[in-house]
């Protein structure tokens, strides 16, 4: 437990440069500066490590880095996605607060591999404490000459800046994030072209999640194989899981991929007050909800969760006990997507509001016969028809809640009150 991003979590001043360097931090970067590591070697290690993007989609990081046209002329960028806003997710905040140098080193390494001399870390606007920590760490790194121009006479340049958001979940979507850095509304761009070809300011850009970047230095220090061995097939290494909801000790846990759900639940102190587990959203609000029965034998890795019928997403495990009214929960989630839709594309702009309104009228005791099917049909009209994945993210909970807990919805419509709460 706590082997990579949270390695120094329990140490005093764990965010400081000293603690970071004492535990081997910046050794990979220094090797690079001395010319002892080539981009190809780094990509090979990353591929070997089995590291997959921690932002939600799980795309293999080594492969992503190899897509950048590193030899093309002109400016290129690396961008770190610290916009963390998916309900249930709160791990990047802790990485920024407790291990900012790992993010800096990871981004610097990325910059070197992809021949990008400038990086931006996009931190969500509300994260002022993490922002200040990260800025402090940047200052330290600049001071000792780990960043800047011609670093240690290596002829390697890397400048790193933070960009602060201002409150919009959609900016976590990578192309919306780029628009936002450019000083525009955070509206996703359609792909192709992909950011690796046309990204920030029109230049080739690689975007990774905070945890993805923060994992890179330790992988290079200890070896890709070491990392891969921590986890299981297809899911290398360890992963931060944010366990929240009806558990005794909600917290972030850095654990090996493939750990059983039961063990993770135990780490969080089990169900609160001895209540009974009812449902789990395993990867953040946009991943399908699972019933208690389906999760009991689930392992916490990409394939394991998929087998159970959901997705690992950002590793945000939301635990619900038997007192939970699923109609209420879904209404709240629907409100979230309705509130956060960027408004650009038709199905999401119009559909999220429609979903929310139908759910709201059910909650208000005005549900109508046929509303469950109506909800299913609306989500079906959104699914797959939008520019970015927010549309699917809004549709997915509706589909899975209704599939697994349809009775509760029908009860609410018929009796105008919650089946659970009465």
């Amino acid at each position: 437990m706590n082997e990579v991003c949270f390695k120094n979590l329990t140490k005093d001043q764990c965010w400081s440069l000293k603690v970071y360097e004492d535990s081997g931090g910046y050794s990979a970067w220094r090797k690079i500066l001395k010319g002892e590591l080539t981009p190809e070697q780094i990509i090979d290690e990353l591929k070997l490590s089995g590291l997959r993007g921690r932002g939600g989609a799980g795309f293999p990081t080594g492969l992503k880095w190899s897509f950048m046209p590193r030899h093309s002329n002109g400016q290129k960028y690396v961008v770190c996605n610290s916009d963390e806003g998916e309900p249930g997710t709160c791990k990047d905040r802790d990485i920024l607060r407790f291990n900012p140098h790992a993010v800096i080193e990871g981004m610097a390494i990325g910059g070197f591999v992809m021949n990008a001399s400038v990086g931006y870390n996009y931190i969500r606007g509300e994260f002022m404490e993490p922002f200040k920590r990260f800025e402090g760490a940047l200052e330290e790194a600049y001071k000792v000459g780990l960043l800047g121009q011609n670093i240690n006479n290596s002829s390697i340049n890397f400048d790193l800046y933070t960009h602060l958001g201002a409150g919009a979940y959609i900016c976590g979507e990578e192309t919306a994030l780029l628009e936002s850095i450019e000083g525009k509304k955070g509206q996703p761009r359609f792909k192709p072209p992909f950011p690796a070809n046309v990204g920030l300011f029109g230049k080739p850009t690689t975007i990774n999640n905070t945890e993805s970047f923060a994992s890179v230095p330790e992988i290079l220090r200890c070896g890709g194989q070491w990392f891969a061995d921590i986890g299981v097939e297809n899911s290398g290494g360890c992963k931060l899981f944010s366990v929240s909801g009806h558990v005794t000790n909600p917290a972030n846990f850095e654990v090996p991929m493939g750990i059983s759900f039961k063990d993770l639940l135990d780490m969080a102190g089990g169900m609160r007050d001895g209540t009974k587990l009812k449902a789990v959203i395993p990867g953040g609000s946009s991943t399908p909800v699972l019933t208690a029965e389906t999760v009991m034998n689930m392992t916490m890795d990409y394939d394991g969760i998929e087998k159970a019928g959901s997705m690992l997403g950002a590793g945000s495990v939301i635990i619900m006990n038997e007192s939970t009214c699923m109609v209420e929960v879904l209404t709240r989630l629907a409100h979230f997507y309705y509130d956060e839709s960027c408004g650009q594309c038709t199905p999401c702009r119009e559909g999220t509001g429609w979903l929310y309104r139908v759910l709201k009228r059910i909650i208000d005791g005005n549900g109508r016969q046929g509303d469950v099917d109506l909800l299913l049909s609306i989500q079906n009209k959104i699914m797959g028809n939008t520019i970015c994945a927010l549309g699917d993210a809004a549709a997915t909970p509706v589909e899975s809640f209704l599939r697994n807990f349809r009775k509760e919805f029908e009860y609410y419509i018929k009796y105008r009150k919650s089946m659970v709460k009465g």
Partner: protein
Amino acid sequence: MISIKARNQIDVWIAKYPKDRQSSAVMQALKIVQAENENILSASTIQEVADYLDMSGIAVQEVATFYENYNYKKVGKYVIRFCHNISCMLNGADDLIKHIENKLGVKTGEVTLDGLISVKKVECLGACVGAPMFQINEEYFENLTVDKIDKIVDNLK
């Protein structure tokens, strides 16, 4: 007029971006200017930011209305932003919001009569393992209970 101090702060952000990309600093410029104007953005401040960054007024207006952190209506000196998303909700956020509304005598979205505090329901603030939680101005407060809230709010001056 944007104050010299604010201009200097904005310039720090402008310097982070490539030449001729000063519009990248617009989000922070708006925050800085808002902070100087009783936490409200008006049409004229938006126009000033536009002029300072060489953008069109409507382009700045787009940004200013897209992101959630900008205000157009009066807010309190302290803005309590209460998360009511899933993890907080599961942990009783709705009751706590009611509690705070009763305590302050305002509804969410409103400001106390003395102008000190306003309360707002917001979406996930990314501190789900500390639910229920809220943010007051820049600071996060987690694992809230009725007692804890009373103490925090009573200390606001």
